[in-house]
């Protein structure tokens, strides 16, 4: 399965869902295909899942999608038992698992290239709907359910290692700009102040 093809299919279907992305090539690809105010590109490893939890708990009426990578989830495995116990019904986590630290440019294998099964780790942590998909059709099925149904979902997407994102021109939106765009969007759509300035 190719990550870009997953995003190409999903991006036009998104409406008011919030999306949090981590660091790997997925942030470049999603940022290229989506460009929504509801996207929060964190640009760091090990943080997207937890930030997504905070958003899902703060805004239970909004659906929160988190796009993670194997390396990023492995960096913060303690998130999984916390996520299981909090069990936000409005959250879907998609872990794009290419089994490598491809950003290192030497394609160093991650633990999922060895014995580690992230869906099993999530399941063992208590996340009931924890599955692995490796075909685009199965990704579409899970993503469709995430768009339309309730319930916490944790979907490990086995993908081919791709360096296609290196050919995509990077966004020149900086992180603070991303934050304010996201927060002002929430203020507008939720009808409540979040960051109040009195300049």
């Amino acid at each position, binding site marked *: 399965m190719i990550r870009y093809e997953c995003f190409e299919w999903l991006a036009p279907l998104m409406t008011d869902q919030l999306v*949090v992305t981590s660091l790997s090539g997925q942030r470049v690809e999603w940022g290229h295909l989506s460009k929504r105010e509801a996207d*929060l590109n*964190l640009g*760091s490893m*090990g*943080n997207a899942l*937890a*930030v*997504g*939890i*905070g*958003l*899902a*708990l*703060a*805004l239970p009426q909004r659906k929160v999608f988190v796009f993670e990578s194997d390396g990023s989830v492995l960096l*913060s495995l*303690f*998130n999984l*038992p*916390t996520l299981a*116990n*909090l069990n936000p019904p409005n959250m879907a986590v998609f872990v794009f698992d290419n089994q490598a630290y491809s950003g290192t440019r030497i394609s160093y294998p991650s633990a999922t290239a060895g014995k580690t099964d992230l869906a099993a780790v999530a399941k063992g942590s208590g996340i009931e709907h924890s599955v692995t998909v490796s075909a685009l059709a199965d990704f579409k099925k899970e993503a469709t359910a995430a768009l339309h149904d309730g319930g916490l979902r944790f979907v490990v997407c086995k993908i081919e290692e791709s360096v296609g994102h290196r050919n995509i021109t990077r966004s020149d939106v900086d*992180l*603070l700009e*991303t*934050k304010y765009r*996201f*927060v002002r969007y*929430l*203020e507008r759509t*939720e009808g*409540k*102040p*979040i*960051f*109040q300035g009195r300049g």
Partner: protein
Amino acid sequence: MEQELAQRIVSGLHDAGIDVITYLPETRLSQMLPLLRDDGSFKLIAVSSEAEAVTIGAGAALGGKQVAVYMECTGLYVSCYSILSIAKRFGVPLLLLIAHLGSFADQRNNSVYAVSGAYVTPILDALEIQYRLVESGQNLETCIKDAGRHTQALKLPVALLFSGDFTR
């Protein structure tokens, strides 16, 4: 910590407008947790690591909540990366409530804690996080309210370090 001080921390958090508290319990300030729970007006989020106390708190803050993060000072070491890569880099207001074990005024200080406490303020200085030491109940509610207002104004984390009477 005496029950009265615990209750006054809860009142101070109320006054500061805090509505979400992420936490990993510890030994010095934990008496406030049942009070916070019984109060009913705070959303309490138990975590497995102080690192995610910060990141979950940051997500909630971006979603419109006013957030306090309660941890032992060793949790500051654990959460440095989260503070730097999310709270500092994105500019997210978080009121850090830190039990300062191993500090001069820690009434239960011993060799287990002393080294852990020694690097807390240097790390906060290195991260450029403004903080106040709180060692008695004098002006406690005002201190918490001031810190809450300051973190919202700065849109950055601000810390209160509790020691002295809070560690009895």
